């Protein structure tokens, strides 16, 4: 009973640690103030039609990216917040200048859906595994071993367990 409780506690802790790690992963964002220009340049698009991020557009004499970069530098120098800068760019060039959907209105759905689907699928899989789980049962001896004498069966099974191959041949 104590063993079962300890096992449950171990898995609970493992699940909590996993959930925390996943939450940290999903909630991260670049916040480096010193590389703000570089960061914001990689969250805006060049509008010349090259489909490249503003920070990566490498066309010499590109009619748009140089001007956009100057505008971005000016906005950062003026002390505008990220949101104000994005709003300004979106107002001037349209929503497609933002390299990712915003977190407002319908755009929010773009961010929610992947996590909702992942969560639902994870829950579904856990429930499925629990439903299919029938507890530890004795399995049938491997047919390959049936013809072997008892001593050899033990030895062969030991080797198979150690190499995890044999009857479970395959990946």
């Amino acid at each position, binding site marked *: 009973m104590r063993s079962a409780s300890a096992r449950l506690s171990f898995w609970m802790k493992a699940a909590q640690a996993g959930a925390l790690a996943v939450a940290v992963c999903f909630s991260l964002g670049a916040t480096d*103030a010193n590389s703000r220009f570089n960061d914001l340049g990689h969250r805006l698009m060049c509008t010349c039609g090259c489909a490249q991020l503003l920070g990566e557009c490498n066309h010499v004499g590109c009619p748009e990216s140089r001007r956009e970069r100057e505008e971005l530098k000016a906005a950062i120098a003026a002390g505008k917040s990220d949101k104000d800068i994005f709003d300004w760019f979106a107002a001037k060039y349209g929503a497609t200048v*933002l390299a990712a959907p915003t977190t407002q209105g319908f755009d929010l759905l773009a961010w929610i859906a992947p996590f909702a689907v992942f969560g639902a699928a994870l829950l579904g*899989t856990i429930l499925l595994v629990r439903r299919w789980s029938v507890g530890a049962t004795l399995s049938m001896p491997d047919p390959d071993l049936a013809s072997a004498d008892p001593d050899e069966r033990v030895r062969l099974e030991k080797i198979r367990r150690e190499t995890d191959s044999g009857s479970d041949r395959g990946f």
Partner: protein
Amino acid sequence: MAAFGSFALLIALALAAYNLLAGALALRLIATGQPLTTPTSKNRSLGTPARISPERLADTARRAGMASFVAVTAAAFALVWSVFSDDFSITYILEHSNRALPGAYKFSALWSGQEGSLLLWAWLLAAYGFVLRLTHKTDVKLYAYAGTILAGIQAFFLAILCFAAPPFALFQGAVPDDGNGLNPLLQYPEMVIHPPMLYLGYVGFSVPFAFALGALMMRYPGERWIKVTRVWTMVTWLFLTCGIFLGMHWAYAVLGWGGYWGWDPVENASFMPWLTGTAFLHSVMMQEKKGMMKSWNVWLIFTTFLLTMLGTLLTRAGLVSSVHAFAQSSIGTWFVVFMGMVLAVCIFTYILQRSHMQSEHQLESLVSRESSFLFNNLVLLTACFVILWGTLFPILSEYVVGSKVTVGAPFYNRVAVPIGLFLLFLTGVGPLLPWRATSLRAIRRNFVLPSIALWATVIVCLVAGARPWKDGALDAGNFYALVAFALSAGVLTAILSEFQRGAGVISRQTGRNLLAATWLLTRRNTRRYGGYIVHIGVVVIVIGLAGAAFNRNVESEMALHDKISIGPYTLVEVGATQDSNANYNSEYALLDVYKDGRKQFQMTPEKRVYLASGQPQTMVAIHSVPEWDLYVVYEGTNPDTGQPIIKAFLNPLVGWIWAGLVVLVLGTLVALVPALSPATAALRVPARTAPTEPALKGGMA
């Protein structure tokens, strides 16, 4: 040649249609046990209808399918011939070639445009079908079903080629002396192999789809069909993998932005079937070993095939903005209708035959290899959904709120990267869990070494200067890179310890040294250990991808003898030169590269202007060593100052990505080789103890 090519396509369409109709009729008659009766002039006079064996009818259908390959080959030959003979009376040749185009690129003109690439698709599909029909004796009935379904897909593509996107359409008006030339982006050696390789993968998924649907239609007894399908899927998956990576390398070497993956919709379109195909290759083992997930596997293959069609639709219908997209055309409607029909057939067949899909769903433990496969499938499918969602969201947004949005790298980096890391974690955990059941003690024993490797890597990275935080805040890129390195170390240790454990047992039993024992171990279970080698390849690739978090770049106008420094290198401008040939004019910057004050080598980044199209193109200079790539782009000259503009990148660990691909290919090839013999067949040892129940139970004690 245009008339010959068009005629060959029509013949091919007729043959594919016959294969489809006669094959379907024959299979129906075989299923219902009825012979085919037809009145002929001879027997009509006798008053008795002739009897044609359905098997014979099916064989004529099969032969028609094989003949259609010959006809499509003739059409493809006609187009290639027309390119090489500069027949600009054909619009396609006029738009995608010119006289000065080098031979290899003339050949690649076959797939550089909409019509030609569809012809390549049809030809590859016909070639796959030819091989399938040629090997029909493996299982005559199953292959007849698969061949008939493939004929349906062939007929669709050939109908497009004949009526919607004819590659042999003639130019109206006076024929120009020279063509418009090939897109400069495509004039690169990898472009001669990347598209065919990708298409081999894309088209190849039609074959497992045909087998899966055929097996479902005929209520195929047992799991043998899945073994046949698995081999086809692995081959196809290998081609698709190579195609994707060749595309990445092409983007890296040609586009000049310093990266290899831009989350472009068409890149995404090729990645989605790869994900579902990978999920299938894992979950199919559950069906083979435990009789589980039959419906799931069938739907994974259906989905994979439909995703290849969706990818083709995205590229060709102008639904999304992409550097890969062909000109907008009406063939999008054809694809939508075809996908709808395929989906309807799949659903109808599944509903009709669902009783055949009863699975034995039993898991002995929550912590087992079976469970890990379920979670592996969950993560792969979630990743596929995320990419599909991101790709289609701009269309959805435009439809719902009337404004288009961009879903680019920042979205995928935030959503898909954590999912990828979770998948990497499962890659390490899966092999450590035995089938059926395990114990806490066994888990602890198996996980000790990988855990030590994982945490040791974290410590080494921190000591070496990696910082997952900056200015008091977490730095996402560095944090993900650190997690990726640590997980990679753990996974690599887990896999290598699996090899070591198995080889150690064989070594003890046979007296061979560890290397020979590892070789024997792999040969005796190629599928399992080939799979592990694939996982090692994936780990090496992940290490290479994680290096991107530490990319650096510097851009500068460089006059003669000017210097720029990046990492340990100093680049000195020592001049510029020009060259020209019949196809393009080029300018080179000559840069001496110094390290520790000593000249190491010279780099010559190039900029070309193609004469036929007038389009410019960069040719990046790359110096690759295991630690990093020194990547230099000659962006052209500043129009105001006349000085060359040089952009240099130092991209850590990029070479590991390509090295990882080689390991991955090697592992897949090993997995495709039949195993030598059962793992323990030769390990006869003297008996010592009597068997006990737990010993026979299997799994880890």
